[in-house]
């Protein structure tokens, strides 16, 4: 009986806090996506040849964790098969957040756009922890003669 109560308690916690965190996160993602629309992220390997840009490798990464409710729901869906919606939202959040962090780095470097975007997803399994890491990286193209001060950021590679 005790075990059942704990289980239900955890489930409620996961459902309540997980949903709240997700809503809050999506709100902030959409807000920042509008802000960073000026810096397009382009998956092409070939940069425009007409201007000579300065370049800088930029990257952004996020580790997101599943919540208890999501884990249990996903385990149940797993029995019958089908679309695992709870995890889709989770990975979508991580991906968009990573791209935004990458764009922030690009913006700090005074870039116009980011080329050759590569995305990478990996499962981080620390014991029982169900978490995924999403990394987004690309080359920021900085127009010449901008006097933007390159701020210190997470990946100090432009030396």
């Amino acid at each position, binding site marked *: 009986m005790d075990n059942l109560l704990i289980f239900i308690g955890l489930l409620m916690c996961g459902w309540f806090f997980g949903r709240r965190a997700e809503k809050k996160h999506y709100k902030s993602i959409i807000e920042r996506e509008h802000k960073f629309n000026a810096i397009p992220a382009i998956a092409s390997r070939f940069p425009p040849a007409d201007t000579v840009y300065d370049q800088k490798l930029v990257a952004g990464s996020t580790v997101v964790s599943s919540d208890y409710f999501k884990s249990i729901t996903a385990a149940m869906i797993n029995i019958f098969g089908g679309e695992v919606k709870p995890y889709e939202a989770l990975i979508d959040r991580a991906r968009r957040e990573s791209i935004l962090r990458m764009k922030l780095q690009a913006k700090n470097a005074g870039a116009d756009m980011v080329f050759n975007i590569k995305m990478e997803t*990996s499962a981080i399994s620390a014991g*029982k922890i169900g*978490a995924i*890491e999403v990394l987004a990286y690309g*080359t920021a193209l900085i127009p010449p003669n901008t006097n933007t001060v390159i701020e210190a950021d997470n990946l100090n590679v432009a*030396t």
Partner: protein
Amino acid sequence: MLLSNLEILPGKQVVKHLGLVQGSSVRSKHAGRDFLSGIKNIFGGELTAYTELLQDSREQATERMTAQAKSVGANAVLNIRFSTSSIAAGAAEIYVYGTAVELVDG
């Protein structure tokens, strides 16, 4: 040192290919942090501790690659790729590789 994941750089010319350079770093968090992340796993949300860990790790791997590129006399590394793999519970390996080249303007 110019680092880029493009293959062609407008306005620059590759005069010498110096081969593959690479760097890697394996890191883990201490048990306390793992425990806290375990609790976070009930409530959901971002695991900031791990985000930082992997970022530091990536930075170190990039530094190692840059050092290797310098030692072979390159002034740029092109076509850089990152890769992550979890090799044991609580530890992740970050691997970064690219082509070391000598670039000149024009």
